[in-house]
């Protein structure tokens, strides 16, 4: 039987807004990894003493490093917002026999984010 199979275009992810958002969300993982590496470099610089820390700060102040980190922050925000938005689809939480509304699950994620950020800020700024 002769059939026609539609080829998948190389730029298929530009065909729909949802596909593009999905690819950007996947790409955001690279920037999450970069942020982890950057934080480890910071910790390493701090542990090596004031001169090393100063070099790290100087390098971080370079325009290209600021540009990378601004882009990384935007992707991190996209990562967090999209994954928190999807969380209630994966998590079905029940309390007293009733399903917890999706909005409350999303709110709980943002609340946990806020609490963890406050703890980190307190540790760094105290």
């Amino acid at each position: 039987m002769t059939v026609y199979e539609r080829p998948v275009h190389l730029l298929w992810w530009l065909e729909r807004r949802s596909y593009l958002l999905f690819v950007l969300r996947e790409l955001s993982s690279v920037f999450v990894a970069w942020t982890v590496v950057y934080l480890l470099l910071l910790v390493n610089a701090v542990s090596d003493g004031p001169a090393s820390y100063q070099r790290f700060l100087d390098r971080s102040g370079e325009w290209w490093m600021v540009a990378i980190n601004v882009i990384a922050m935007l992707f991190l925000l996209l990562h967090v917002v999209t994954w928190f938005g999807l969380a209630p689809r994966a998590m079905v939480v029940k309390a007293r026999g009733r399903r917890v509304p999706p909005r409350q699950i999303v709110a709980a994620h943002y609340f946990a984010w806020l609490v963890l950020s406050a703890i980190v800020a307190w540790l760094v700024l105290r």
Partner: protein
Amino acid sequence: MADEITLEVARFRPGEDTEPVLQSYQVPLREQWAVLDGLSYIKDHLDGTLSFRWSCRMGICGSCGMTVNGDPQLSCATFLTDYAPGPIRIEPLHNFPVIRDLVVDIGDFMDKLPTVKPWLVRDVHSPLEEGEYLQTPEELEDYQQYSMCINCMLCYSACPVYALDQDFVGPAAIALAQRYNLDSRDEGADERLAVLSSPEGIWSCTFVGECSAACPKGVDPAGAIQRYKLTAATQAIKGLLMPRSRR
């Protein structure tokens, strides 16, 4: 409102065409007419060679899935007036081999579906005289939305993962597996685990979410898959920590 609307229908005649070509037809634009009515008008009055699948005409059978202006839709539930003044482009469901015109080969889905055992599995069947297996409204609610699946395959057509990897078990089959896994009367979750947690199962899904957006019955296959990822991960950890315990 105009009297007519143009339908640009993808035609593929095996042996004649190497790829689908669009053919335009003028059909009456009536308020209560769905795309399927327009295609039936073409078949009955303009071109009897046009091929397409349909059965119930009321969004139950899942036979008339097509790509309408780029979106997977049930053609019986997609109204012409919503696309006026047109034209409306009607193509076969994406991601399936086209046999002729708007008819696709659904063999791949039909082969995959029984592998997830989408039926009630019981270790021991209670005697008939004991009556029905009773269920509370809450237990029904756990799986009810997944039971709405009509196997129309719009979710497969919308899924870019399935487009790229035809080995993927796919959204509807996994949602239907969950329909039974979450049913309090079912005892077959262990038997479905191997297929669902295989690389071609839930782990192929990257949560694009288009399957749920395309579903005409409000099923959330993407959600079902993510929920099962949590279940499979929990089972895997339990297996590591307590290798001798029964799942």
